């Protein structure tokens, strides 16, 4: 039972990271109809940016983390202005390839720094544990879970109560009507990309104490896709829930199912979810057409 709870807590924490990346993916997809395959690279970039500002430039950790998130968000906005907006109205695969290529450039850029290519690093926070009776929780896991909850609340408030948030939602529901109502659609697209990129960077920083910062840390985004699809691709709460569900299912499968089943679980779940609920677990609402 204790082992079960221990594993569950890890699963939830990892699931939150999946969920955050899935959230960033869905946010972009919903607002701009663009499929981004560079969220993992943005995540990696966020981790390295925080690291560089903290360790190399000597900024305090909190400031470095904040600056890293802002920098990656700015990059997302800049890329949207410069290139990504050209994919609007094109087939999905154009955006898939474009973002994949941009991701390669980011990875190449980081890999050209010898120190980044050769080593992995830790960001010096959240190394301790918290003891709750017989249960021992890793501080890094609590950080992830806490930050995810706070971010989810902030996002919910943003979409509900701010002008920009409501405009963004209107834009995602029906861009043409939104434009007619005076919503600056192009600017909303930039905002969506900034938010999506920033969220990925947050996920990177939260992942830093768990997997350390290294060149291939972005591969975790591969698990975020099944999470996003499980959530129905267009639902923000669904993406987050899909991520947590996936993380927990994966961890428990490792404990209960026979050896080796753990790694297939996300994809079998994805396949099953796609076939059983073609519009997502949270779905029902406008998911199916996919174009």
């Amino acid at each position: 039972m204790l082992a079960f709870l221990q594993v569950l807590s890890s699963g939830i924490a990892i699931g939150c990271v999946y969920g955050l990346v899935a959230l960033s993916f869905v946010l972009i997809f919903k607002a701009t109809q663009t499929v981004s395959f560079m969220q993992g690279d943005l995540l990696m970039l966020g981790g390295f940016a925080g690291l560089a500002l903290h360790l190399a430039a000597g900024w305090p950790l909190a400031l470095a983390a904040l600056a890293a998130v802002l920098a990656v968000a700015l990059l997302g906005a800049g890329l949207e202005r410069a290139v990504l907006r050209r994919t609007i109205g094109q087939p999905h695969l154009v955006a898939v390839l474009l973002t994949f290529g941009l991701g390669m450039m980011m990875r190449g850029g980081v890999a050209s720094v010898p120190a980044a290519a050769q080593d992995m690093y830790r960001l010096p926070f959240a190394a301790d544990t918290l003891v709750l009776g017989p249960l021992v929780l890793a501080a890094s896991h609590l950080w992830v879970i806490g930050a995810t909850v706070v971010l989810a609340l902030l996002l919910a408030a943003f979409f509900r109560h701010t002008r920009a948030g409501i405009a963004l939602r209107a834009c995602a529901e029906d861009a043409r009507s939104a434009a007619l109502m005076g919503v600056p659609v192009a600017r909303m697209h930039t905002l969506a990309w900034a938010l999506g990129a920033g969220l990925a960077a947050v996920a990177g920083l939260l992942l830093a104490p768990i997997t350390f910062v290294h060149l291939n840390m972005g591969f975790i985004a591969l698990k975020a896709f099944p999470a996003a699809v499980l959530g129905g691709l267009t639902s923000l709460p669904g993406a987050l829930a899909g991520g947590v569900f996936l993380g927990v299912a994966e961890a428990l499968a490792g404990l209960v199912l026979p050896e080796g089943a753990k790694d297939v679980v996300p994809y079998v779940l994805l396949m099953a979810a796609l076939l059983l609920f073609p519009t997502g677990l949270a779905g029902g609402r406008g998911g199916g057409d996919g174009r």
Partner: protein
Amino acid sequence: MRRTAVLRPLLAWALLLALAVAWLGADFAFGQATLVATYAIAGLGVVVIIGQAGQIVLGQGAFVALGAYAQALLVQAGVAPLAALPLAAAAGALGGALASLPAGRLGGLYFGMSTLAFALIVEELLVRWESLTHGSAGLVVPAFGLAGWTAGTPAAQAAISLAVLLAVLAVCARLLASRLGRAWRAVREDEAAAAACGIAPAAAKLRAFAVGGALSGLAGGLYAHWIGFISPEQFGLVFSFELLMLAFIGGTRRLAGAAWGALVVVAIPQLIAVLRDTLPGDWARSAGLELMLFGAVVVGVVLLRPQGLAGGSGR
């Protein structure tokens, strides 16, 4: 099919090969040509599925893997490589047919995601089924041979790959001009309209995947011989994306797109490596530079030639 329309590009390619031989040396150029042709065959599968039938496929690498493993296992069991190739193609076709099954329920991007899941499950199966595939330790594949003769030299390998490529190009050209090709294009443009005209979209998609899978499986059979060692991770997601890039860079609407795309995907990184040797300093030696330049090529082509190098707005 008009003669000049076939001959002119053929002459262009022959000229390109001759230039490569003169500049890079015969063995190096033929080695490149072998892989370009093999990749082009695999890429044709993507061109058929995406460009003709209009379906999103994110897991094409799995079909190549199925072909490669079928070929390797059959040859190990004593089947002649040439006799095994059709079976490798059949393995790919079977994989394609399987992967296309969710198309009945899912559309567009969702279906694309299901092919991704299919590819990851295939990769996992190849790792797990150790008694057959040796798992992640991989399989050593003997050289391609025919009745005592082995294709050991790059020139012979290039000749075989190019011959197979030309043959499948001819077959595909026929196929596209047939009823089936028209059905694919109808489904691509408007599924509902196609159905109204008496075309069964599900059957058309299934056939597109079977043909696309067969082409990639065939390429996998050749690939196994040329590389000589196969392991599941070689055919992972990165490989699927490489094929996707290949098709898009070349142009998904034209069959020739696969060849142009293969040239870019296989040869550009090599070209970057050759040019890099002429650059001074330590910085040029970092691996990041190659990755960055290749990423830039992909971004550039997608932005500047959204229809691909072979162009064409569809036939």
